[in-house]
């Protein structure tokens, strides 16, 4: 950095970044507050009730594993998929700095595939939760519930006619889980769409004409933010 640069006396950006990049940062900051508000609201409600669902009990399934009890396994897979797609994204940005179009194309494809893999995992997880059938004791009778915005079959266990069944848990569970992971999943989906557009623009040579790959950098900021949010969703919903 040139020593003694007068950043605030005009004639240059005090942030040493293009308008688009600064605005992308501000957008991500506001988005961080949105996600933060969601997660803190979830935490507040979770702290305020007595029998929140135990994540190790709710999220213990794995595709094709039947009823095997595998807590944390599937969500670890999803986490590693997203971390890996973050690495391929940062490698695409790196190739962009070197003006290597072929390299950018290769890593953008890998990033898009990572995003699609993550979304597929989430689709499976949601389907499993919504269609999963649990015996729940409601007003002295057994009902069969899946997890939804209106029904939480993950309350304290009880014994009914010699059978261990569940009781209704706090109703907020489904709303927070589907609301927040859905909002994150929608970010992943828009990230995949943005990355596909960036891939097409790379392929058409738009960035070579422009002389720089800054658009890849800005899409990369968004994609890393999606990974960053997942780190916190992973913490709040699955780990603790």
């Amino acid at each position, binding site marked *: *950095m*040139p020593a003694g640069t007068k950043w605030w006396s005009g004639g240059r950006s005090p942030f040493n970044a*293009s308008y688009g990049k600064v605005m992308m940062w501000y957008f991500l900051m506001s988005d*961080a507050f949105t996600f933060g508000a969601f997660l803190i609201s979830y935490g*507040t409600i979770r*702290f305020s009730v007595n*029998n929140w669902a135990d994540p190790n009990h709710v999220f213990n399934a794995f595709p094709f594993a039947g009823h095997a009890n595998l807590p944390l396994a599937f969500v670890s897979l999803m986490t590693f998929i997203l971390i*890996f797609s*973050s690495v391929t994204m940062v490698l695409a940005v790196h190739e962009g700095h070197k003006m290597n179009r072929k390299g950018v194309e290769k890593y953008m494809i890998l990033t898009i595939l990572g995003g699609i893999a993550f979304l597929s995992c989430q689709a499976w997880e949601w389907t499993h939760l919504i269609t999963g059938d649990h015996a729940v004791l409601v007003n002295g009778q057994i009902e069969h519930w899946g997890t939804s915005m209106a029904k939480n079959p993950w309350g304290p266990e*009880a014994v009914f006619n010699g059978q261990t069944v569940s009781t209704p848990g706090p109703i907020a569970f489904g709303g927070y889980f589907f609301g927040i992971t859905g909002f994150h999943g929608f970010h992943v989906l828009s990230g995949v769409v943005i990355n596909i557009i960036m891939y097409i623009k790379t392929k058409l040579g738009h960035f070579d004409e422009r002389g720089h790959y800054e658009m890849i950098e800005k899409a990369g900021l968004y994609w890393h933010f999606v990974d960053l949010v997942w780190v916190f969703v992973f913490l709040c919903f699955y780990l603790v």
Partner: protein
Amino acid sequence: MSAHSSSSSSEITFHPEHSGGTKRIWKIFWVLSALTIIELALGYFLYATHGSLAYTVVISTKVVIGILTLLKAYYIVSVFMHLGDEVRNLIMTIVVPLVLFVWFIIAFLADGNSWKNLRNTNAGSKPYIEKAAPAPAAIEKGDKK
């Protein structure tokens, strides 16, 4: 760097040096993976010892997992998003507003906690416990917290 020669010169005073190799990126990938594996190990520890640990041990483990998560967030933002390579002015305009979260988290979680304490006293209405209580025929097996 010639690659950036067409960037607007009034916006960009200098370009941070992007070192030639990808060594740092892969290093951070392994750091993030290792932190995730430690988190998972602690999460599994909480699962395996479920119900047999003191409340303070459980909460401390969860706090450690939270700190590891913040460390992961730091590496993602600083290295993958290259915020660490930007000028101080840009770093500060992004990071300083986020300090609000410190108040935000403490205030709201404390509020939720006091709400629960109130629910469980006779002064509160105990709404949740009574509604969730199983029908008379059923015998509580003990709640799982």
